[in-house]
């Protein structure tokens, strides 16, 4: 397969994964968690690059460690809800920068870790994305009803005798795995763009909650491929082009919602009123 075909395949898989992981992150309001995690996993990649092992493995292990730290820190009483994510974010970047500065002749380009390079994804990266996609589909299918129940009525969920931690674990696990596999293609900073933006856009325009995941997947694949095409056509950094394309989709959804709630709604009402009088 050519580099471009591999990149297109990886972006398509990530777009589909965004349908599940992105929806979970957006609906359960874990965006800052996902952003902090993806940023802070950067030193994991640097460490494994220095040691000469697989980058993805290093980032996955480091992400697991960070999730543990964040879970512990979020239990510290007397501080805001976002502090744990903020501290982990600072830790990750500083550690990554320190390690980079200690190893000036690093084999891996640092900017590739940060902003990604879709055209250099390997078959192993694609396989990892596919595995995470299939696993997320299976787990979400099994837990879907409980996740929905807990998201929209946590008190009722507890009263019905369910335990909250399996749901939290499923959500955090899927979100973290998605962030990690997105990294080789779109990097530590923009990795969340392809996951969150299509789902946030889908949430704005979907008529019902069950429409959000498929809509997010379609928007994610379309905007990812559009970004990839634009990067080749106009000679732009591919990670940045994909991030920009997903943002444009979100802005379009925002405008569509404004129109649908405003002028279009009014036109419909006028038409209805005329039909009623006729």
């Amino acid at each position, binding site marked *: 397969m050519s580099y471009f075909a591999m990149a297109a395949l990886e972006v398509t898989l990530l777009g589909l994964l965004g349908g599940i992981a992105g929806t979970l992150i957006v609906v359960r309001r874990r965006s*800052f968690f996902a952003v902090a995690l993806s940023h802070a996993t950067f030193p994991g990649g640097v460490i494994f690059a220095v040691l000469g092992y697989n980058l993805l493995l290093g980032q996955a292990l480091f992400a697991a460690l960070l999730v543990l730290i964040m879970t512990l820190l979020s239990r510290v009483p*007397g501080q805001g809800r976002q502090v744990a994510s903020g501290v982990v974010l600072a830790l990750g970047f500083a550690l990554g920068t320190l390690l980079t500065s200690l190893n000036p002749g690093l084999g891996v380009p640092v900017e590739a870790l*940060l902003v990604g390079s879709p055209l250099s994804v390997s078959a192993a990266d694609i396989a990892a994305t596919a595995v995470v996609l299939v696993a997320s589909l299976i787990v979400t299918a099994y837990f879907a009803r409980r996740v929905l129940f807990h998201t929209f009525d946590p008190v009722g969920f507890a009263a019905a005798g369910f335990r909250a931690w399996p749901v939290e674990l499923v959500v955090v696990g899927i979100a973290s795995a998605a962030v990690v596999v997105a990294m080789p293609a779109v990097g530590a900073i923009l990795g969340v763009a392809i996951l969150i*933006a299509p789902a946030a856009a889908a949430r704005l325009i979907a008529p019902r909650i069950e429409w959000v995941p498929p809509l997010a997947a379609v928007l994610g694949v379309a905007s990812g491929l559009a970004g990839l095409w634009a990067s080749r056509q106009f000679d732009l950094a591919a990670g940045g082009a994909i991030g920009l394309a997903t943002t444009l989709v979100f802005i379009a959804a925002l405008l569509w919602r404004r129109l649908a709630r405003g002028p279009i709604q009014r036109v419909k009402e006028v038409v209805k009123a005329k039909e009623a009088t006729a």
Partner: protein
Amino acid sequence: MEVTLLEALQLPFMARAFATIAVLAVAAGVVGLGISFREMEFVSDGMVHAVFPGLVIGAAIGGSAGLLPGAVVAALAAAVIFTLLDRRGGAGSDAAIAVGLTGLFSLGVVLVSKQQGYAAQLQDLLFGHLLTVTSAQLWQIIAVAAIAVGIMLVTGRTQLFRAFDPAGFEAVGFHPLRTDLALAAATALLVVAGVQALGVLMVVALLTVPMAVSRLLTRRLGLLVPFAIAVPLATGGLGLWWSFMWSIERNLSVSPGALVVLLLVAAYLFAVAARFVWQRRGSAAAA
């Protein structure tokens, strides 16, 4: 060779680096109060990313002299965008902030990729250069930080009212949007002040961690800001000194900015541990 902190500070570049840290510590302590009370950590992270395209555009237009104006314009624009996004509230506001953050950063990456020397320039903007802050840059940092602190001092009382009693604040007839915009502008200016020295990646630590440490150490409102200034000042001095010592003794090239931030995070973890011990003692004494 053993060098004390005072001797190291007699070197002009070390003195400038320490002065930068001191100015940023004061500004971060004052503005951090607003960020912490209003839970704006994520919004401030958004502003940090949003400054990036401003830096790229500024550098493209005016070279290194264009960095600051570009950053100020981008940061203030981002302050307005993120305040409006955050105000919408509801389930979607944090996702909207995440999209704005990645979108603006993507714009910066795309713009920088169209230029010559892409990788080197990107690294400089991302990682900062604490030790090569020029005296002109230091004056810029002082000016921008002073405006940020000034905004907080002028609006301080209304900010506190808004943070502790939002309903009463509106009932008395204050404008929430105006107060929110003032706080966002102060945050944006602090980001601008810190970004050249610490880089896009690490300035977020300055916005969130000092006040997080301070709130763990004390519950008295009057002590929050002094503690939040003292902590980065101490870790900043220590970080600078260590990176200097390591570079002359062991010939290691340590990023001083990264060391300062790591020490700041260490101070936070230490404060968490101290608080747990203190609470145990308190509950044991009460029993």
